């Protein structure tokens, strides 16, 4: 029950969804749509697990008065507050308070966190862009060309734009194709291992 049924389910759904592609018909298309919807719906239940885990960790921290427990209060209050503002009688996703919280808290913090990375990426650029070898010089030139394409460089703008576009469309595409071919092969091999029950780490130990 603990091991065999999950293996059978993985095999059945894996094979059926792989086969449906080769049987272009209405029932097979319907099965495909139901499976995709199913994955989304189960994802919502998985989110419930994640939120429960967040509440559990936060509650325990507050109860034990662990270090920095005050921040768990902030997290839990803001989480419930935001969810409450998203309720039907508050206007749902288009409710005025929900939109205000989204625009004035969620967006500014998110943008600030990501823009914070600009400072760290500056120091990373210094290390990565030092032309210590021919290979790192190629990295430097490619990155510089790409950045120069979008800034005004006067009479140099046209040639830089042309060389930059060619670099993106040709050598960059070649390397991306090599990577994608590798990713494709790896994904197919992993999917086959899972469907055939060779890879079972998702079942846990017992």
């Amino acid at each position, binding site marked *: 029950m603990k091991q065999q049924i999950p293996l059978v389910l993985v095999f059945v759904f894996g094979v059926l969804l792989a086969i449906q592609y080769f049987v272009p018909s209405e029932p097979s298309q319907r099965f495909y749509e139901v499976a995709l919807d199913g994955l989304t719906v189960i994802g919502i239940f998985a989110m419930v697990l994640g939120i429960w885990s967040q509440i559990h960790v936060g509650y325990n921290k507050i109860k034990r008065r662990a270090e920095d427990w005050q921040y768990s209060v902030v997290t839990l209050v803001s989480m419930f507050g935001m969810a409450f503002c998203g309720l039907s009688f508050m206007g749902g996703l288009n409710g005025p308070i929900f939109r205000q919280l989204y625009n004035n808290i969620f967006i500014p913090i998110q943008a600030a966190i990501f823009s914070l990375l600009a400072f760290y990426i500056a120091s990373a650029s210094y290390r990565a862009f030092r032309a210590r070898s021919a290979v790192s010089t190629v990295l430097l030139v490619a990155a510089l060309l790409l950045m120069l394409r979008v800034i005004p460089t006067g009479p140099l703008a046209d040639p830089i734009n042309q060389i930059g576009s060619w670099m993106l469309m040709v050598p960059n595409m070649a390397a991306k194709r090599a990577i994608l071919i*590798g990713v494709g092969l790896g994904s197919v091999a992993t999917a086959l291992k899972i469907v055939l029950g060779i890879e079972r780490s998702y079942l846990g130990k017992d």
Partner: protein
Amino acid sequence: MTSKIAMRILTAIVALIFLVSWITRSGSGMSDSAFTNVRDGFLITFAVFLTLSIFSFLYRDNPFYKFAESLYVGISAGYWMSYGFWSTIVGNFVPRASRSLSEFFHVPYQERADHILIYIPIIFGLILLTRLLPKIGWLSRWSLAFIIGATAGLNLTRYLRSDFISQVSNSFIPLFVDWKGAGDFVSHISLAADGQFIAILSNWVIFVGVMCGLVYFFFSKEHKGAFGVASRIGIWILMITFGASFGYTVMGRISLLVGRITFLFGDWLNIL
């Protein structure tokens, strides 16, 4: 003790700046309603406070940053909870599940003969929640098995088609475009972007680049001799991609920073 006093002084200064900003922004509001001006003044000041709290991490980890970070975790969890409920449960499940529920949520009911199928994922979803009950937690593996099996089955054809077959077929391209002989090629040679020479060169770079890139990722044979040369060319080609990706990332982050600076100096301080 000294650091606690310093922290309290700093908090008081921040609170004072916050208050002054709130009052100033409320006073310079554009709306006729005093309440709207006060509310907008508070919201913009609070957004500034949060932005500066996040930037304070550049100095070191501190309570302001931790506060903003915790607030973000909570707000985003609440946001995704609401979004998931309205877009997936109400938008996807309710219209197919029940007429009365559809009427309650004001969404059009979709009558279908096979609407019973939509309950299967709900059952799997409920089974997933058994993870919260230690005695029957193993049942959640069934739902996990559905997710993993379905994803593996879908990926099997999807990756094979888009990441493998289409990439391989697009890499096998003519290496001599519009070839009418060496004499014609030499007499018409030019560096024009749409010329024959550039077209031939591009196709050679793509074909050789893909092959050499693949050779670099082939670890079952030692990279020596001709194989080593191809592998080194592969590294060069890959470095161009990594450089381009790095350049894009730098530009993306810098533009976000510019956005935040514009917000601080434009929307808040009205200097820009």
